[in-house]
């Protein structure tokens, strides 16, 4: 039996279902809610429901979207023959800040990781391959992070995509512009050296 009154116990239980929230944090959050002004709590509840009800995933690129297809996919000015593959929706925001890339995106929603039980069937890979069957498709830019999982997922995708006759490229990684050699972390400097280019 929970030592708390029913509604409080229920609130704690809901917080506990969130990722990364343990029993203690759930209790702390619940007690915080009890001390919040009622209006703030009401606004919080509305934001939760509204976000969930009005947002879903774009049926084309799997990005978070307000409608069936997201703003990028429905923008006629974007190049439709280029797809940039990212692991998470937040990576799209990073690429968009470049104001350079004019193609479309595809969100995998994760990376291959047997340790976490994640295989191709848990990622939005089949959906990507479907999109590539369009004959006008020219290039897939794989923009996963340069981690072991990111690199392996890129390798897996390349094998899957190349037989379809689509060019596959991968983001290069190197020194940040304006970064000083002395302060660069060793791994960054090392990969910048290994992928150095002719002047």
């Amino acid at each position, binding site marked *: 039996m929970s030592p708390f009154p029913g509604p409080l116990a229920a609130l704690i239980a809901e917080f506990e279902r969130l990722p990364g929230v343990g029993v203690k944090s759930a209790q702390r959050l619940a007690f915080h809610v009890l001390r919040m002004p009622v209006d703030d709590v009401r606004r919080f509840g509305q934001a939760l429901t509204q976000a969930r009800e009005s947002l879903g995933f774009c049926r084309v690129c799997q990005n978070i979207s307000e409608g069936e297809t997201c703003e990028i996919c429905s923008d006629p000015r974007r190049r439709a023959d280029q797809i940039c593959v990212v692991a998470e929706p937040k990576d799209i925001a990073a690429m968009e800040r470049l104001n350079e890339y004019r193609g479309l995106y595809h969100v995998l929603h994760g990376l*291959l*990781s*047997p*340790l976490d*039980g994640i*295989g*191709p069937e848990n990622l939005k890979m089949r959906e990507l391959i479907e999109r590539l069957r369009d004959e006008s498709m020219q290039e897939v830019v794989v923009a996963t992070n340069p981690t*072991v*999982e990111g*690199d*392996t*997922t890129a*390798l*897996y995708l390349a*094998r*899957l995509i190349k037989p379809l006759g689509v060019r596959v490229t991968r983001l290069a990684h190197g020194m940040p512009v304006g970064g000083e050699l002395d*302060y660069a*972390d*060793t*791994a960054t*400097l*090392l990969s910048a050296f290994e992928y150095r280019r002719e002047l």
Partner: protein
Amino acid sequence: MIARLRLSHFRNYESIEVGWSPNLNLVVGKNAQGKTNLLEAVFLLSSGRVMRASQDARAVRHGAESATVEGVLQNRDVLSVVLKRAGRKTASVHGSPLRRASDLIGRFPTVSFSAADLALARGEPQDRRQFMDEEMSQIFPAYLRDLTVYKRALAQRNALLKAHAETRLEPELILPWDERLAEAGSALREARQEWIQELSPLTSAAHGRLAGSEKLSLSYEANDEANDRGGFLGALRSRLSDDLRRGRTSVGPHLDDLVIAVAGQPLRHFGSQGQQRSAVVSIKLATLESLQGRIGRPPTLLLDDVFSDLDIDRRDELVRSLVQLGGQTIITCTEESQVSADLLREANILRVSSGRVS
């Protein structure tokens, strides 16, 4: 080399600052007063990790939330590590945070020796692989990178094998992991073979000075035939059904060993305790020379309480070989009388008593 060390809330120290000589430093004190903790703080700045197989949280002084270790090197670099009772440790250079604490490796090279290193002669293959991994990571950043990639890819491949113990595994699912493993694994094995080839004659020479006529040799023992990327991939493929049954990978440098032999006999099975000790000291001295050759300056040598184990002759010979190398040396011992008078005159002596240094 290190010029100054500041500790706060590290192990049994509340807040101290210590100056180091570029030559010989003696840390003298009775047991359990904090001598080894000083040495460990220096090692932490060099490696980004605590020395003994313990958790970061244990290194935080009782009652404190975090411990800070800061070192000023002779080249004026300021390295620091903050250990937390809860949460990840952080490291920085001149106050700029590094991505990982292991990014400190290579900035302040050290070679350490304590009684626990006797596992190099006596222990399991794993102890010798750890020795190669630690020392080589200081010299070659590419080695550290390949090692990190290899360990992660190996864990992922083994998880994949276990998940498919009962169900069919599509070849294209394991192939990308095999490629990562083959690339990093063949690079690791090749680098280790090269380094051991360089270390073997240096070790023999050091051993000759320390222990006389018995010939000491090192050889790298690969677990399998795979010695390039292609061979590695082939071996992974041909052992796949075996690996699936066992749920782990049976090819690769994570199964290799370093064979230390005296007069042709593997030390691990045949050596006496005395032979094992002089072999390990010789390997450490050779490592020091190798690092010095590679990085162009002598690394700092950290010796934790090795005198009590050695007889007078070997102790003097050891100290003489160290002084000859001309680098910074930090030695802990229980009595000043363990060191000869002429060396004491040149040494910077730090007396440690219940968390205080004078």
